[in-house]
């Protein structure tokens, strides 16, 4: 009882320290300038409430010591349910445009773009264990490659898409060569700088990229040559299928394009994981020195991871450009890299399903909560803290073996290395 009282007293003290300046002082403008009005009563109320709540919590915990195993069983059941979660989410993604309205399809496109970026970065961070803080650079290279090639050479989206991916992969290799001898924190800082360099170059190379004004009038994608437009003339989607032209047709088409691109990323990653290259990536994350002793060329293995991740980032960038019709350097800031990285980390390093769930929560959640935008960052911060306490290795931690003699069993996350770059 005495320790509980002491505990509650300390909690109240912390609350006092926090809320005395935040709640207890009010600034009010008067004719003599700003004055501080002390408000002791609300502070006293809050501190008392914290004291009482802490006592109540301690009493509740003392009476229910068996609460932890129940939570663990719940977590186990959740892990078992993830087997059905993947197909469920896929089915939902496939039928969404048929059921939902324009707003939700647009939101779906946004979420899927981040899912694809997350899957692309997952190759670099999750599988190969190389911390990349400048992923938006490849996103930008893909977007600008498409926009410039399409405008200067008059090529269509489907011709430019592989080119954009190729250019981004090329930049991935170019970044990789000087950088891959660095490890851990050093690698992270250099990739961060690379992301900024690309953005600054795009902003200042006005004659090529249009600088801060960006590029507008980027061509829209076509379905086997059929355009999506406001009229039903020959050569348009609506005219060919004898439908009434509607802007939602283009949105639905874009939705399925990004869904297809994202699924391609997922399929290639899952295939590669079962091939020697993917296994070498994971082995690299686990122990680089052992890899070298087994005759694995570390430089080329890391480069392929960088190039692969960059290529899918480039694809996503080209899609972003064609969807928006307008791009500017502002779309490729560090915030973008940080968002994609937090999707990967929140989802669980190396987990494909985790990336989907994290993108849904982070992108979808923050879009849907626009109405109470003031508290969005507060909720986001609380969510991150909760994650750190409850699932420190991400939403879907653990890893499935790529080859087995018997039944595949999940490998617990505690055994996995996070990679040191």
């Amino acid at each position, binding site marked *: 009882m005495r320790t509980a009282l002491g505990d509650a007293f300390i909690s109240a003290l912390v609350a006092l320290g926090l809320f005395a300046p935040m709640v207890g002082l009010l600034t009010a403008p008067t004719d003599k300038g700003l004055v501080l009005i002390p408000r002791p009563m609300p502070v006293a109320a809050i501190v008392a409430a914290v004291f009482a709540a802490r006592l109540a919590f301690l009493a509740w915990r003392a009476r229910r010591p068996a609460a932890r195993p129940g939570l663990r069983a719940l977590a186990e059941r959740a892990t078992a349910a993830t087997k059905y979660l993947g197909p469920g989410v896929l089915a939902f993604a496939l039928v969404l445009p048929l059921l939902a309205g324009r707003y939700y399809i647009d939101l779906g496109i946004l979420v899927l773009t981040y899912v694809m970026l997350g899957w692309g970065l997952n190759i670099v961070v999750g599988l190969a264990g190389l911390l990349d803080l400048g992923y938006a650079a490849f996103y930008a290279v893909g977007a600008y490659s498409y926009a410039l090639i399409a405008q200067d050479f008059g090529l269509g989206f489907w011709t430019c898409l592989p080119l954009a991916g190729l250019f981004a992969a090329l930049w991935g290799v170019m970044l990789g060569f000087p950088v891959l001898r660095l490890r851990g924190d050093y690698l992270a800082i250099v990739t961060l700088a690379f992301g900024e360099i690309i953005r600054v170059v795009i902003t200042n190379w006005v004659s090529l990229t249009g600088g801060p004004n960006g590029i507008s009038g980027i061509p829209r994608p076509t379905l086997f040559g059929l355009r999506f437009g406001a009229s039903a003339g020959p050569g348009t989607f609506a005219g060919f299928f004898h439908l009434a032209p509607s802007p939602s047709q283009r949105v639905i088409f874009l939705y399925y394009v990004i869904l297809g691109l994202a699924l391609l990323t997922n399929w290639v990653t899952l295939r590669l994981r079962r091939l020697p290259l993917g296994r070498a990536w994971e082995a690299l994350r*686990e122990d680089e020195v052992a890899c070298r002793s087994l005759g694995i060329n570390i430089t080329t293995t890391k480069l392929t991871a960088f190039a692969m991740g960059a290529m899918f980032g480039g694809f996503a960038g080209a899609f972003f450009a064609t969807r928006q019709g307008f791009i500017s350097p502002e779309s490729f800031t560090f915030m973008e890299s940080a968002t994609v990285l937090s999707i990967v980390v929140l989802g669980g390093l190396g987990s494909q399903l985790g990336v989907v769930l994290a993108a849904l929560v982070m992108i979808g959640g923050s879009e849907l909560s626009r109405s109470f935008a003031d508290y969005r960052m507060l909720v986001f911060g609380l969510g991150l803290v909760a994650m750190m306490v409850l699932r420190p290795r991400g939403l879907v931690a653990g890893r499935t073996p790529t080859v087995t003699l018997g039944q595949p069993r999940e490998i617990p996350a505690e055994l996995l290395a996070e990679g040191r770059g």
Partner: protein
Amino acid sequence: MPPNAAPPLLSVERLGMRFGGLVAVDALSFAARRGEITALIGPNGAGKTTVFNCITGFYRPSSGTILLTHADGSAYRLERLAGHRIARRARLARTFQNVRLFAGMTALENLMVAQHNTLMAATGFGVLAVLGLGRYRAAERAAVARASEWLDAVGLLSRADDPAGALPYGAQRRLEIARAMCTGPVLLCLDEPAAGLNLRETEELNALLLRILATGCSILLIEHDMGVVMRISDHIVVLDHGRKISDGTPEAVRADPRVIAAYLGEGDEGAEDEPVAACPLAGAG
């Protein structure tokens, strides 16, 4: 030692390694012959692991040559090869003093990673294998068969699908040897394979090493456990302070007064050596 027409498998000539002002290995010369177990022993800090790291390409020696000659006569200057090429071309495999397995991957996966180069050659630059075409499927089946064979040889076949990090310590050591063997080496370098093993596990290790020798792979090992060294080695090289102080059969080395002096900390150069408690020769079997 009878004069041998064929060059030895591994020939180290005047190897030197210095870190700044510290001379870790000084003008060391020795040879490891084909089909034999060669042991490298010496008190703590004698430079054994440094020699190993030079041979396996983790350090670049300051001076000297390391020549590896295959049975077909092709020779490799190991001090000039890049680290990963030593394992791949010169076919030299190693284990580590502190076990370095891929802890988050299963035992089977560990052995599959070891066959990376063979498997990569069968993927057709990755593209064909991603599409599920080409001869990759057959290559993977062969790799799994080879891995199963080695898992069986080290008694871990029943734990093939368990993560390597969850295996007991002795099993991890055996798995590391199996992983090295999956690269198809001509010379296996073991850095203290018996460290931390109990008596029965040490017996099993001896049997395993003799079986590896029977497959045609020669062995170079660093070891503190004289029960292993004296019983199975054909040839022993003794180091102290980075220099070779003795070289010969187990019997000859055991009788060498310089070796006894180095281990017991007596005689002219033993002032800063290990205390008597570390003397392993007493229990030599």
